[in-house]
């Protein structure tokens, strides 16, 4: 039951805008049917009759568009152009699908575009940046060479962000700053683009929302990417040095005893030196077999010290940067859905 109710609500929500964009006028529908049957005369008659009736903006644009297609199909280009000019004035963003439109109608439409002054395809990019360090990209297309003034307006605030004579696509980079240099205040704004040629003018707008947020701070480092601490001690390889030195010391002592002994006193006693020397050689042998004690690795110690200094220095810089960032504001600019067209 609940599922059916949800489905009904969903259908109602979907069908509402669809009904607003469908042709209700019977005369216009008859004209469309005649055009679809390639009965151009009937389409012209019914289309013109429909324009004399009460139509919605959408229906009126469809009626002129139908006339434009019909005149183009009948090789009446000038009249076709006139009809398309009305379409463009009613719906400046209107574009024809080149895959579904005849080349005659397309060229008539392009000619019409160059003969009316409209601002098309006004677009503001969604962007987030730190105030003062980024820009908001605004772009639009003006169909005729004209003086184009771009403003950002919210209540009493009106900021002129660009004024230029241009034709075709225009790109503006707006830093979103007040004349004082501060970031613009948070709120809903309208980007208004006004084009003027003599008495002719056209304006269009796009609502945007500007919000403020905190600037992300940088995390402190505990290591540098790609660099790891090295062991500050290393075990030297086993060697026979202890055994060799013990043997040398013992040999020197015993040889010295033999050499220094007084010949008148008979052969010298090697018992005492032999016992101590044997103990020494045994200790040297054991030390040779034993795993050597870890020794400080001076190169690694210096490397680690350098790494610690680098990380400390970088963290100091990060702390300073974070202090600065906490005083900044992050601007988020998001375009909102457009309420209406141009005038």
């Amino acid at each position, binding site marked *: 039951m609940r599922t059916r109710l949800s489905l009904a609500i969903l259908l109602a929500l979907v069908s509402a805008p669809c009904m607003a964009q469908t042709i209700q006028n019977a005369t216009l529908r008859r004209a469309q049917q005649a055009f679809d049957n390639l009965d151009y005369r009937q389409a012209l008659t019914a289309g013109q009759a429909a324009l004399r009736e009460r139509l919605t903006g959408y229906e009126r644009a469809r009626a002129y568009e139908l006339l434009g297609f019909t005149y183009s199909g009948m090789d009446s280009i000038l009249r076709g152009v006139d009809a398309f000019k009305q379409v463009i004035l009613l719906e400046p963003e209107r574009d024809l699908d080149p895959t579904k439109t005849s080349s005659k109608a397309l060229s008539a439409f392009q000619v019409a575009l160059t003969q009316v002054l409209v601002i098309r395809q006004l677009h503001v990019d969604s962007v987030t940046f730190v105030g003062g360090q980024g820009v908001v990209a605004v772009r639009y297309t003006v169909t005729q060479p004209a003086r184009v003034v771009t403003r950002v307006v919210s209540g009493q605030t009106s900021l002129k962000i660009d004024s230029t004579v241009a034709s075709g696509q225009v790109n503006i980079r707006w830093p979103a700053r007040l004349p004082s240099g501060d970031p613009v205040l948070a709120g809903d704004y309208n980007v208004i683009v006004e084009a003027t040629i003599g008495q002719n003018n056209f304006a269009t707008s796009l609502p945007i929302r500007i919000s403020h947020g905190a600037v992300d701070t940088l995390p402190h480092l505990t290591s540098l990417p790609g660099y790891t601490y090295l062991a500050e001690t290393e075990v030297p390889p086993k060697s026979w040095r*202890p055994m060799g*030195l*013990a043997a040398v*010391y*013992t040999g*020197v*002592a015993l040889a*010295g*005893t033999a050499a*220094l*002994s*007084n010949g*008148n*006193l*008979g052969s*010298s*006693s090697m*018992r*005492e*030196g032999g*016992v*101590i*020397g044997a*103990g*020494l050689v045994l*200790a*040297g042998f*054991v*030390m040779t077999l*034993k795993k*050597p*004690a870890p020794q400080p690795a001076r190169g690694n110690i210096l490397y680690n010290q350098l790494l610690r200094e680098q990380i400390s220095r970088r963290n100091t810089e990060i702390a300073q940067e974070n202090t600065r960032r906490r005083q900044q504001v992050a601007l988020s600019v998001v375009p909102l859905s457009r309420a209406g067209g141009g005038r």
Partner: protein
Amino acid sequence: MLEWLIAAVVVFLSIFPTFQLSAQHFSIGPQMIFGDYREVSADLHYRGVGGGAMATVTWKKLSADVAISKLTYKPANDGTATQQFDAREFDVRLRYYVSGPISAELGFVNRTAKPEFEAQSMGAITAGAHMGYLLGPGVHMALRGGLMFGPRFSGGGTISPLGALRLGLGLNVDALRGRLRFNGDYDFQRVSRKTNDGSGELPAPIQQSLGRLGIAVAF
């Protein structure tokens, strides 16, 4: 009994608080000593065994060894001596670290024989060099050599300036994380003594070899 005593000493040392061991500049312990003594000729040949003690002190670049010993020398089988005697020796060695493995050594040795006329008592100042090397963790060895200056003998006599020499070999092994030290020490002395009873100088050399094996408590 001895095993119980050793076990008791080990247990006692193992419960020493570590703060008392933080410096470990001092050690002291008993030693078993054995030696060989010869005098004048190959006929006066003695061998002996005894006991003693040794203390060591280390402070910065300075260190000192003090050894006392008492041996009973008995006539060796290859000699003609008939009387045994006791030899008491007091040996002090002061060292100053110089560079690398080398330390300079200064000290004195005094040996007293009892009965007095069975062997020469003597005393001398010693000077020489000490070369130490760390064989491995807690294992030290040393070789030393030097001269004995100005010796005095109970029976008189003189020596030439280079006539009294000394040579030694030492080993120290730490145990129980340095609380206990096993040590071995070899000391050889040769004194080219000469006597003169009015008929001219006669050689009366003295030669002693001492071996010391001991254990010490380190603080």
